[in-house]
């Protein structure tokens, strides 16, 4: 643990790493503990200085801050700003941090007070719209997914340590889905966001015969118009598309467009 890291004779700095969570299920952090087989190697590669869910010791400066969760209360903006100040690289960990995640589903109600009342009645509770981190601070790197894929985080952390730039796949999930030799869920009569969602999860859901809900947000050249077309062709109504597009926030603006159109025009007839 104390000896200097190096690779091919090039000395490497063991980054000081902190994990932080805002509004979230803490599942993404948990995924890191879920690396049983490689956890010890992982711990050798980095120096964890802050990980509230796992340890009591705390440190205040870090090379990499992994921030999980979205911002849903004022005090979280302050915490996030503080983390940003202390971190060289700020990583948005998981869909909540990248896009608002499931938390942003409440943003779709026009009346925020209704939302509060629905859950807490008249008890006063502080909250605001759910936001991704990038709405308040500069995010240097995003790790997508709900939950994040531990292999991907390990790869990214190794790349950061050896100094490689992190490239996310730009193509959609279909590419990985097909490489897993899955039969397309559309053929099996189920909707899927694979054609527009950024790959990198190795088609986690579709390989388990579950349609993709777009947790990793849009692929680089996401052809959303065509997706809508496909959904209609295969007989899925607008709400089914919206359920998926709205779920994690990555497609929020496109979902809004569809909602807005829905108000204007009646549902398009499906191709027979």
């Amino acid at each position, binding site marked *: 643990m104390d000896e200097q890291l190096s690779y*091919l*004779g090039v000395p490497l700095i063991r980054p000081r790493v902190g994990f932080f969570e805002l509004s979230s299920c803490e599942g993404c952090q948990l995924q890191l503990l879920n690396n049983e087989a490689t956890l010890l190697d992982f711990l050798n590669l980095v120096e964890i200085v802050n990980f509230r869910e796992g340890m009591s010791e705390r440190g205040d400066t870090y090379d990499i801050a992994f921030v999980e969760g979205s911002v849903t209360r004022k005090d979280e903006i302050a915490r996030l700003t503080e983390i940003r100040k202390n971190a060289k690289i700020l990583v948005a960990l998981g869909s909540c941090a990248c896009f608002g995640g499931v938390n942003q589903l409440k943003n779709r109600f026009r009346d925020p007070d209704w939302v509060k009342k629905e859950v807490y009645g008249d008890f006063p509770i502080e909250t605001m719209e759910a936001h991704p981190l990038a709405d308040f601070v500069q995010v240097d790197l995003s790790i997508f997914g709900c939950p994040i894929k531990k292999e991907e985080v390990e790869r990214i952390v190794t790349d950061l340590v050896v*100094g*490689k730039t992190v490239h996310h796949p730009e193509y959609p999930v279909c590419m990985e889905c097909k490489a897993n030799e899955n039969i397309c869920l559309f053929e099996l009569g189920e909707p899927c966001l694979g054609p527009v969602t950024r790959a990198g999860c190795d088609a986690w859901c579709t390989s388990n015969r579950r349609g993709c809900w777009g947790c990793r947000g849009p692929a680089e050249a996401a052809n959303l118009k065509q997706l809508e077309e496909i959904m209609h062709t295969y007989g899925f109504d607008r709400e089914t598309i919206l359920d998926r597009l709205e779920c994690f926030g990555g497609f929020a603006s496109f979902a809004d467009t569809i909602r807005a159109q829905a108000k204007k025009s009646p549902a398009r007839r499906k191709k027979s």
Partner: protein
Amino acid sequence: MQNKLTFLDVLDPGPGTHRKQDPGSFEYTLPAEITSIYPLTASEKLYQIQIIDPDQRNRFSFRPGQFVMLELPGIGEAPFSISSSPVRRGDLELCIRAVGNLTNFLARIERGARVGISGPFGTSFPLKKMQGQDILLIGGGLGIVPLRSPLLSVLENRSRYGRVDIMYGAKSPAELLFTYQYEEWRRFDINLGITVDRTDKSWQGRTGLITELLQERIYQTTSLRNNTYAIVCGPPVMFHFVCKMLTEAGLPMQKMFVSLERRMHCGRGKCCRCNIGSTYTCLDGPVFDYWSVMNLKEAI
């Protein structure tokens, strides 16, 4: 058990295998060592790389214009033009600009490090055909790197060629490569024209586009048609203007050579990443005559 099919080992060297046809050579890299590193500019360094095994080193031969694939485990593998003279064989010089994973890691590496080399790959400049003719070597930016090997070759056999012009342009004086060698090159009776887009205080030379240098050269001759060959290396925009100008000055397209760059993952005509149509930059190129490039869609 006679119905158990027999297993064929393709790496088993059968009789009469040709070197390139030997499948065992596919992923095989020659162990090599970085023997010295010279920083040339802020982002480019010149690496001297020696193939470790003396036998392999001496057998390694290449022609100017060809490239090697250089590999670092887990970091990457990429094509680099050989910029040393072919007489030096497996004692290579590569000039590498730090732009990405492999190249940035190389920039941090120390002398003595091990790398893997495979190749040489690709086509080369037809130096034999160029003998007895005037030669224009036109390079922009990093384009001087693939030009250096044919240049050194020409200098070593200076008497076999006619007039030799080098035109080299860079964005700024700080980005000029091989500055320490200009004097030496000039001594060989060649015209060395250097220009930069942007100047700074220290710069005494000329400012402007490389096309202006070329224009001046063209004015000195009536036509380039009969006695000239050109080699053009640089960014795609430069190809475009320079080649057009040369064509207008009468230089036939098949006497103009360019070196193209594409993303390459194998260097062996398999990965398709460098394809332009079915033309592989790695097999059919990187050196093409301008006529072939004109006929390739989306080549530059």
